[in-house]
């Protein structure tokens, strides 16, 4: 028997098989029990021809396995090629929840100030006039003290009109350094309209330490405004008056819509008013027992709804209290 010729013939039969069935047929013919090769192996007597027959058999078996894998892979490819989905069909529906827009903004601000090393303090919402006004240096006769402006529970208890009473409570409780922000609901007797609601949210920040400057306030607000409104923002200071700060400053942020060129949102000035700020008035230090010669500090306050309205173009902040899923799920 010509082993070499047989092997050549078998190899070409395996290679020529185009389906698993053809390959199987060829495998039975050349490697099956009744195949000439197997018969020859059974009949072989001398060691030399045995070794050469066995080597041929091994090569052929390897070739069959390889061809089998090739054909199997081709079969799979063909099947997969036919198994097509319409990729534009929707996925399996998942219910998705949303944080309220104000919470999202609140977290952003908290994270900015956590990054700057501030702690977050939740103050009380029902406060005494001592913490809400007296300790913050509101003079007798200041309009905010009026029952026409604030919501009183009785003569000296009211719903806080800003979150800064928390600052007094923290300063009373310990010596500087104090770096804190307080965020939450505040209450004023405002007639509801597109930009007012009797309940709204503020963030107020306080930093008291040795050597705090007005420049530190400017830098801090710049950092915060860039985090909220984009890296290109600039900050401008305008003088103002608040009882609890001296000097008092109103910070403006450069308009993020027109980049300072002037548009409806910035009332064609290129600048948007962001709230109030200033250097902590020494009367507050006297109230909490800090030494105003040793410590200085700054404070600032911003409205969260105002940020929402400006940044997202919301036309009416009362919508934030409607809790309509169609609106809440936009953000």
């Amino acid at each position: 028997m010509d082993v070499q010729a047989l092997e050549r013939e078998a190899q070409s039969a395996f290679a020529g098989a185009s389906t698993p069935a053809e390959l199987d047929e060829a495998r039975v013919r050349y490697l099956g029990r009744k195949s000439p090769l197997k018969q020859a192996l059974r009949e072989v007597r001398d060691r030399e021809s045995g070794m050469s027959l066995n080597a041929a058999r091994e090569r052929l078996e390897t070739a069959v396995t390889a061809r089998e894998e090739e054909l199997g892979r081709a079969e799979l490819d063909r099947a997969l090629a036919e198994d097509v989905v319409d990729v534009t069909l929707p996925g399996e529906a998942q219910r998705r929840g949303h944080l309220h827009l104000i919470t999202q903004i609140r977290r952003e601000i908290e994270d900015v100030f956590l990054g700057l090393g501030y702690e977050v303090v939740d103050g009380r919402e029902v406060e005494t006039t001592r913490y809400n006004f007296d300790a913050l240096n509101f003079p007798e006769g200041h309009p905010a003290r009026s029952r026409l402006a604030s919501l009183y529970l009785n003569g000296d208890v009211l719903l806080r009109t800003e979150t800064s009473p928390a600052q007094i409570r923290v300063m009373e409780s310990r010596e500087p350094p104090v770096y804190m922000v307080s965020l939450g609901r505040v209450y004023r007797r405002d007639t509801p309209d597109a930009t007012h609601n009797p309940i709204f949210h503020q963030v107020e920040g306080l930093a008291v330490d040795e050597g705090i400057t007005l420049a530190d306030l400017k830098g801090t607000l710049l950092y915060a405004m860039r985090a909220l409104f984009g890296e290109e923002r600039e900050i401008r200071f305008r003088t103002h008056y608040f009882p609890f700060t001296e000097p008092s400053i109103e910070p403006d942020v450069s308009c993020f819509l027109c980049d300072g060129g002037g548009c409806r949102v910035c009332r064609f000035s290129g600048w948007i008013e962001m709230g109030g700020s200033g250097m902590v008035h020494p009367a507050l230090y006297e109230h909490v027992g800090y030494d105003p010669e040793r410590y200085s500090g700054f404070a600032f306050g911003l409205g969260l709804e105002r940020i929402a309205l400006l940044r997202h173009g919301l036309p009416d902040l009362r919508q934030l209290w409607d809790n309509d899923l169609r609106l809440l799920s936009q953000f």
Partner: protein
Amino acid sequence: MRVPLSWLREYVSVDAPASEIAKRLAVSSAEVERVTRIGVPDEDGNLGHFRVGRVLEAGKHPNADRLQLCRVDVGEGESRQIVCGAWNFGAGATVAVALPGAVLPDGRKLERAKLRGTVSDGMILSESELELGADQGGIMVLPESWEPGTPLADALPLGEEVLEIETTPNRPDLLSVYGIAREVASLFRLELAAPPGTDPRLAEDETPSIEIRDPAGCPRYLGRVFQDVPLGPSPPWLKARLLAGGMRPISNVVDVTNYVMLALGNPLHAFDLETIRGGIVVRRAGAGEALTTLDGVARKLDPADLVIADHERAIAFAGVMGGEETEVREKTTSILLEAANFEPVGILRTSERHGLRTEGSNRWEKGVDPHLAAQAAALATELLVSVAGARWSGHADVHGELPERPIVRFRPERASELIGLEIPAEEQRQTLERLGFELEGDVVRVPTWRARDVGREVDLVEEVARFRLADVPFTLPRRREMFGRLSKEQRLRRVLEDVLVGLGFTEAYTSSLVPTGQDDGAVALPEPLSAEQAALRTTLIRGLVEAASRNIDAGNDEIALFEIARVYLRSGESLPDERWRLAGVTEGGFAGAKGAVEALHAGLHLELRIARADGGVLLHPGKAAALEGGWLGELHPALLAGGWGAWELDLAELFARVPERVAYEDVVSYPAVHQDLAFVVDDGLLAGELVDVVREVAPELREVRVFDVYRGDQVPPGRQSIALHVSFQSPERTLSDEDAREIRERIVATLAERFGAELRA
């Protein structure tokens, strides 16, 4: 405060355009709301179309009885024919003329036109058409001496720019043109003119009788008498100034008082001298006293109201509004001019009490410098004499000790230090001096008009800082010994929010203020905003029910809402107990709520312990449960129909149980053995009771879960089958079949003993 630019420039010769002045004021002094232009537009040579004219002929229009036909010399050689509807003038009158092409203040463009068949080659103007006055009765008659053809703009303030300034309450000195001029002089480093007003010679001595019975409420009362007052209209320039300043011209006397208030910031009042009985007394109102004010309203006075009275009755609300009976009127020939000073809080209270806010009260309530009264009186006197032609015949100035100029210690280096910008001491000195402060060594004397506002070193730091705000650099505090972190409660609140959002819940914000009557224990507001916002809430759930209901009405689906906020419970102390709560409302009934509450507990690594509870008014009576620190259940259909799950948890109670740290358990090294066991028990038994016992007897238990509850043919009546999926696992070894059988037998035996439970085959 409206500041006409021409008026401002009378006190400081500033060349900068209005926009530049506005920009600098806004940064350093006071907000400038806008810059407006009033009067005749100054564009494309428009002012050239307005001329002084002399009427050469005037007669009835041939085709219209109501019109006059005039020939007017406007300095062109040839006179013009102009048709006019007014009759308050005749030939020889000097008038204001607009020529064809002129754009009037109201935007109308004048054309050469035919009126009733006759050409009108221009228009003779009234005050109101030029916005120089309110008189619409006829055309404006000008002084005879004015030459025809003179550009009208050279003779009259035809139009100008006005700064509309919003001042802060600490700066009443800026509620005056002179006060703004002082700021502008500082901003542009210009010379400020001396304050306007010089007393003419006092010819006679008719000293008015003035008595101040309440020197705290009225530190100063300066009164002046004028005789032979020819009451009438003010000259055009004065009317124009008042209009530009936002006030209506009334009569020369009243206009002068208003002019002085706008110029200097000290409100004045003029009484008809003949109506004053005896003399002036400044006192608090008597019991039952009444006063009819200038607006014609009869008002009952409060004993706390400060009034100006004569020897018989109250004749004016001090600083707020004059009385009708003593008002200056047409027949008035002698007046008493009041230049006083009033204490702010009393004026504020009176104005609040009577709902009366006036230009005067607005200034007094912020605190006017008592030294200012003399200057204001001088300017008023000068004007009454020179403009109105009155005779000044008497003067009295009653006051105690007027406040001294405060003295403040000031360290320029401290200012630089606080601002964070090195400002040379010399520059600081100049800034302060320009504003009227006097420096001597480290001592600063504050000008009287800033005495209320500046009392500390830091107030002077502000004076220095506000002129350099743009130069302040951007730095961050050099922090020490501080790091930022959320408190445990804040961190856990975020965890709960995230768990719920992950479950598909959306966060709602609902009102802290609710109607009364929901909870008798709620803290009520004595003066609520509305009946709907009259008490502090004691639960979050009602707001969420309302929110869910709104969403249903809106046609939204997959409604699942939560809120984390505070409730306010009576505490027995003056401040209520504010507690953070978490509440939710969801589709899917009891099981929907329970699934969420289970997930929340899992998120906090807490075991959920639950017991059957009374539903109360909120919940379905058969689907209500109590939790540690809260409740869950299905909403009572009367509250919200359709099977809604709901819960509310008290976060302090929940968080108190949260473990400080979660300890590692080996759940990977050795496999768990899973088994399903079904027990037949009495119908009334709660699955939770079964599960509790299984946990108790099998410490190797890794998980136990009820996966089926069955009642029906396969079990005897009055019994139910509860199927449990249990898995056992040891962190130390692989449990053998033998071990599993032993545990299982322990469970089966105990359940049989406790509940008569039979294991179903």
